[in-house]
Every structure is written in C-alpha cells, then in structure tokens.
C-alpha cells in the first residue's frame, strides 16, 4: 500500500511544482499578491507531499516490503535496521528521491523563513525553484520511478552493496546532497535578481545564509566521504581524484568563492555581476556532479547507474537551467549597476584574489576531470588523468592561496597599506618562520617541501588565532566583555581558516612521512614496523549478522600502552562479495592501519601503513564546517537585512 501512496504523492508534488513555477512568477510580474501567496502555499504543500513519498519508500525498506522492486534489489532481511533505512538512498532511484526531498525542503525553507524578504523577490525565487523541482520530479517519475512493483514478490531481497553498508553511507550522500541542492537556492536568488534587474546589499544579505547552509553540509560531506574511503576501501588513501570526488570538490571551490564574494557585495556593493555568475556556476557544477555519476560519461567506482537515457534527461536539465540562466545573464547583467570602487590593497582586493585563485583551482579540477572526454572526442584515444596531474597543477595554485588566506581578514575594507598589514601579521609570520627553520633543521634541505608545508600550516593556525588575538588585545582592559561580545561571524571565520591550517598539517604529515610494509605472517609471528612491534596473535572465523569474516588479531607494542588491533575480510553471501575492514588505531600523532589479504601456505598476507598526522585532515575539514555553522548562528544573519522603516505619513486632518 505504501508504494501506491508514495507514487500518488509524487505525482501530486509534480503538479504542485508546476503551480509553483507559474503562479509566483506571473504574480510578481503583475504585482498580484494573491498569485504570489498561492506560490508560497504550493511550495509548502509540495514539500509536504515529497516528504510523504520519501517516508513511504523508507517505510517499505524498513519493513522489508519486497513487492517493491527497488527494495527487493537493495535490501535483505538479514541487513541490520540502520542499513535497511540507509538503503533507501543507496540506489539510483532512491538517491534521486532524496535529491528531490532536499530540494523540496530548501524550497519550503524559503517559503517559510525570510520574513523580511521583498515579496516580489521571494515570489521569483520560489518560481525559479519550482521550475527546477518540476524538472527533477519529472526525471524521477518518468525515468527512475522508485515505486515500481514486483509481481510475484520474492521471499527475500538482494543485498545492498556491502561496501555501502557502513555508518559513512548513512550520512555521506544526504550531506553531499544538502550541499549540492542547497546551492540551488543561491542559483534561484541569482536568476530572480536578473529577472528583477536589481541586485543590492540586501540581496547579498538574504542569499549569504543560504550559501552557508549549503556550504556547511557539503564540507562535512566531502570530509566524511574521504574518511569513509580511507577506512572502508582498505587501501589507506584519503583522496583519489576520482571523478566523483572531483564532482563534489568543484562546487565546493566555487561555493567557497561565492561565500566570500557575497560578503563584498553585502558590505561594499561591489562584485555584483561576478557574484551572480558564481551563484549560477556553483549550482551548475552541482548538477554536473549529479550528471557525472549518472550518465556513464566517465566511468568510476561511484557510477552506480550507467544509463545513457537518464544521462540525456539530466543533460537536458543542465542545458535548460544553466543555458537559460547564462543567456539571461548575458542579457541582463551588463545593466546591473557597477559596484563601489576599491584599491588593490584592501579587503575587497584580497577577496578578489581569493576568488580568482579558487576559480582557477576549480578550472584545473574541471580540466582534469573532463579532459579524457575531450581527448576521446578529438582523436578517439582514452587517457586517464591521475594524481600526478593534480600534484603538478593543483598544488602550485593551492599553496599560494593557503599562504594568502591569512592576509584577508587582516585587511581593511576599501583601502589599506601593505606595510601596516605586514606589521599586523608579524607574530604569525615569526611563528611560521620558527616552524620552517625547525623543520629544516630536523629534515635537512631534502625535506624542504615538507618544511614548507609545516610552515604554511603554522602560518594559517597562528594567523587565524591572530584575528581573535588582535581584537582581544585591543580591548584587553575589558577582556571578559571583549570575548563575550565577539561576533560569532568572527569566531566562525577564525575556526574556518584554522581548519584549513589543520588540513594542511595533516596533508603535509601523511604525504611526507607515510610508510608501508607488506609481508606474509603466520599466527605467532612478530614484525617490527614504524617504531612498533606487531604480533599476529590469532586468526579466527567470525559470524556477523549478514556476513562471515576472517578476522586477524594483532597485538601492538611500543609507543604507549600495548593494544589489540583487529583486521578482517568479510564475505557477504547474499551479495556474493567481499569487503576489507582494516584495523585502524587512530591517534593525534598518526594512525596505524593494518589490512589483511589472502591466506596461503606461506601465511596470511598483511599490509600495514603508518599514517602520521592523517587524522588532522578530517578534523580540519570538520573544523571548517564548524566555523561555517558558528557563523550561520550569528544573530546578524538570522535577523536578515535591516529594512529601513517606511516613513509613515501622518494623515493630515482635513480642514
């Protein structure tokens, strides 16, 4: 029964989305308040029906209703409850339903909040949002219906891919989608502004919380995805430049640029058309991310729905939304008022440089991801672009950007003096210099790159601390009050930039000092590795809820108290597949990572890695997201733009 309810709810949602795309745009054009109000109601109701549809599918999964074809394909009675629930979005159709769900919730958010939003602007935002919702609901219903029945129903289902049965999967796709889809709101604001022909500081104020609300989960999602790949795929890497990873990185880079340029627009009324363009491109790249995974145009681990017909539909959606919005941009943007002027050395100048570097970074990732497609087009050859390309092209642009990050918050708006800025940064510079010299003294000239990385990390951390330090030092007479009254936006900024420092620390550490070893071991064998000794104590068979495992227990001594590390290979009989569950000892100074392979008469193949400082990569990512969160909680953002009260004209008594 639930499948039919869900199906019906989706169809109603599609009809409501059609109303939502027509009524408010027409209402705003004619100045008809009733039509605009209809748009709002349609948006909220559409969100309610999509939530209902999603609930129906989740219910079918949780109750193992195998008469629903999708459930039979991706669930099994022995699968633990949380994974039966997470399987709701483990398939192509389910993940598209999740996409639409998040789109509907964001749309509902715009309809519900933003009390001070200009009514015509809100109506246009909702209208544009309705067009996107219509396109994706149509995609879902016509090409990827999640509610198809299976007759006769099988007694038990096939299993969800065991690689995906992990706490990481429960959170990773929803977070990424919250990010991707969240940028749709910035996109809608941009298109609505182009339709209205009006962009001002108030517009930037309204749009910035929405950009942040998308950026935070995207940051968390990318970080979590990297951590998941690290512990689940069993070969100890944390970033692979896989096309799908790149697809999430590109909107992140542009979204970060957008976050900063919207700040300039809000504070100084400058970078108007650039900010609009960024908003359009960020969401377009999110769509390209969806498209990449689904079209089969690039093969990768993640490509779980290779189907050219769906690709054509998605490409149509991208073509229509991005194409029309860019055409609108070419037509309307030149007429937007040019912003205030500023000098090169100023906060605005710093942010322009930040934007240029982020956009170039995004372009290099784009080129790396899509050049195989272009080269194949040109001469039929297929090539793969791997980590060496990114090491050569991405890193040389990313490193100056990291070094420049510290300058931004130290610059004054409008105009500044380079010498004065350098003076403000003398303490962080000294700390970074000491770090550089210490690392060079320990590692020699051969370790120059490592020393440079450590110095940049120290520079970022000290430079971020200096933001708060300078502020509090200036008000040291009232330190308590100074700390209490620090705006959360500033705390958020400090955290986000410091997170970048932690990330740099982790990347430098693991790149410079990683070591590994492969050998065959029998129970009782001992091996020395990276300052520790590992003893293979036992090799057992273990029965899990829906898998059998071959588990190796290691006793690790040295570097603190001895401990036991378990590493196993799991076999999932229903899915007929195997996963590696590495044994990982996590520590602030480094991880010990042990994965086991095949057994043979010469012993069990064991591969061990020492990953110094790697944990800081993810802690850095989460710190950045936390910074965004703290900033989002700032009162000034929540309250929205201050609207000048209209001057009330006292009715003059008739004489």
């Amino acid at each position, binding site marked *: 029964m639930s499948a039919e309810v869900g199906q019906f709810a989706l169809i109603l949602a599609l009809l409501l989305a059609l109303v939502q795309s027509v009524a408010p745009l027409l209402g705003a054009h004619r100045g008809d308040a009733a039509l605009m109000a209809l748009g709002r109601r349609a948006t909220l109701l559409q969100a309610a029906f999509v939530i209902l549809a999603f609930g129906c599918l989740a219910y079918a999964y949780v109750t193992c209703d195998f008469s629903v074809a999708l459930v039979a394909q991706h669930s099994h009675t022995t699968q633990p409850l949380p994974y039966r629930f997470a399987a709701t979005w483990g398939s192509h159709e389910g993940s598209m339903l999740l996409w639409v769900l998040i789109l509907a919730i964001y749309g509902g958010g715009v309809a519900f909040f933003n009390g001070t939003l200009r009514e015509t602007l809100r109506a246009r935002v909702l209208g544009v949002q309705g067009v996107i919702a219509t396109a994706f609901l149509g995609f879902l219903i016509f090409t990827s219906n999640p509610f198809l029945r299976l007759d006769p129903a099988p007694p038990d289902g096939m299993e969800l891919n065991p690689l995906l049965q992990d706490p990481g999967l429960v959170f990773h796709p929803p977070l990424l989608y919250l990010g991707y889809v969240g940028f749709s709101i910035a996109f809608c604001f941009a298109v609505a502004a182009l339709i209205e022909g009006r962009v001002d500081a108030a517009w930037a104020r309204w749009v910035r919380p929405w950009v942040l609300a998308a950026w935070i989960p995207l940051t968390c999602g990318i970080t979590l995805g990297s951590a998941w790949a690290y512990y689940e*795929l069993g070969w100890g890497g944390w970033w692979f430049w896989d096309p799908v990873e790149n697809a999430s990185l590109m909107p992140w880079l542009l979204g970060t640029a957008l976050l900063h340029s919207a700040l300039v627009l809000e504070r100084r009324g400058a970078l108007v058309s650039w900010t609009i363009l960024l908003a359009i491109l960020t969401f377009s790249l999110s769509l390209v991310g969806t498209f990449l995974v689904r079209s089969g145009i690039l093969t990768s681990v993640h490509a779980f729905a*290779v189907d050219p017909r769906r690709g*054509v539909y998605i490409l149509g959606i991208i073509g229509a939304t991005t194409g029309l919005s860019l055409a609108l941009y070419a037509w309307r943007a030149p007429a937007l008022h040019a912003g205030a002027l500023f000098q090169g050395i100023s906060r605005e100048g710093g942010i322009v440089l930040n934007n240029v570097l982020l956009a170039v970074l995004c372009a290099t990732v784009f080129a790396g991801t899509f050049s195989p497609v272009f080269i194949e*087009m040109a001469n039929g050859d297929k090539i793969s672009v791997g980590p060496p390309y990114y090491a050569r092209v991405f890193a040389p642009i990313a490193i100056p950007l990291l070094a420049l990050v510290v300058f931004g918050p130290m610059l004054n708006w409008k105009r500044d003096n380079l010498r004065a800025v350098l003076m403000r940064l003398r303490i962080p510079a000294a700390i970074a210099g000491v770090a550089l010299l210490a690392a060079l003294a320990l590692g020699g000239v051969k370790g120059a790159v490592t020393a440079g990385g450590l110095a940049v990390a120290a520079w970022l951390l000290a430079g971020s601390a200096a933001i708060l330090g300078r502020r509090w030092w200036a008000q040291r007479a009232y330190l308590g009050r100074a700390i209490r009254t620090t705006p959360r936006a500033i705390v958020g900024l400090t955290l986000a930039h410091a997170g970048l420092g932690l990330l740099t620390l982790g990347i430098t550490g693991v790149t410079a000092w990683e070591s590994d070893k492969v050998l065959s071991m029998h129970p009782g064998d001992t091996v020395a590795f990276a300052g520790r000794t590992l003893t293979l104590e036992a090799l057992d068979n273990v029965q899990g809820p829906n898998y059998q495992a071959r588990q190796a227990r290691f006793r690790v001594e040295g570097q603190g108290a001895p401990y036991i590390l378990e590493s196993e290979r799991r076999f999932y009989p229903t899915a*007929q597949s195997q996963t590696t569950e590495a044994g990982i000892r996590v520590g602030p100074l480094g991880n010990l990572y042990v994965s086991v392979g*095949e057994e*043979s008469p010469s012993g069990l193949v064991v591969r061990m890695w020492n990953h110094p400082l790697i944990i800081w990569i993810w802690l850095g990512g989460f710190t950045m997201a936390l910074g965004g969160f703290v900033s989002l909680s700032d009162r000034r953002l929540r309250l929205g733009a201050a609207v000048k009260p209209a001057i009330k004209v006292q009715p003059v008594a008739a004489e």
Partner: protein
Amino acid sequence: MKRILFLAPIVGFVVLIGVFFAGLHRDPTLLPSMMIGKPVPQFDLPPVRPDGPGFATADLKGEPALVNFYASWCVACRVEHPMLMRLRAEGVPIHGVDWKENETGPGYQWLEMRGDPYIHVGDDRSGRTGIDMGVSAVPETFVVDKRGVVRYRHVGAITPEDWDRKIGPLMKKLQAES
C-alpha cells in the same frame, strides 16, 4: 566590448554541452571494439608471478576464456576483483594482463593480497598489447572463443548483473559452439 565579456559564459557553456551530448552517444560501454570478430593479436608477455607462466596468444586456443586487463593502480579493478574471484571459483577460465605498471612488484602483490583469479597472467609494462587489443582504460575484459577470436569487449568492472545478463550467457553459447 563589455557585452562580449558577459556573453563568454554562455558561449563556453554551449560548446561544453555539445561535447557532453556527443560524449553520451559515444558511451564507451556501448561501443563495440575494433577487435570483435578478429583473432587476438600476437603477443608473448613475461610472467607476473615470479614462479608462474607468462601469457601468450597461443594460450588462448582450445576453450573460450575471459582476458581481463587490470592494474595495481586502478581503483575500479579493486571493486571488480571479488567478482573475478567468484567466477574463478565457479570454474570460468580467466587470463589476466597486468597493464602499464611502473615497476615489477605491485602487480604480483595485488594477486597475493587479494587472491589470484588468473590461469595465465602476463606483464604488459609498455601497454603495447593493451593498445593492440584496443584497451582504453582498465579494467576491461575480452571474451575470446576457442579459436582465439575476440567475441565481446566489456569496458569497466564486471558486476554480477553484467555477468548474468551478457557475459555469462555468451560464455555458455561459446562453450556449446563446435
């Protein structure tokens, strides 16, 4: 002049979308190989396993078999590997070509770590054999009949579905051929 600047994004985008559309219809997984219906090109590769046999064209005569191109640096191959182990356990003859490694060792370590599904496995360091066969990226698998003629090319990891729908039935048919 300023107008042209604002037109640049849409022009760039139109070019891109055109290429993507063309790319969709040239989906590599749908493209038949140049090799289909032709005998496997001549090759004689050194062994990957220090104590094992190499892999040469002559090894492909007699029974239908899969020729799987893999590499230790390939991500999708890791996903595909358990499937190959399953097929091997079911008695499907599979030969391997370790494609474009930088050095000796990783290709063999791969087999040691994850299990060895191959009867013959050859080291194609230069990538020459792969190019002769029209390999575009690993993993890629060819179905070769008992006369040594390429009958099917599969691009990307073999999933249980691919096996049940396409490759498995084809292998059955080839085994029945006289």
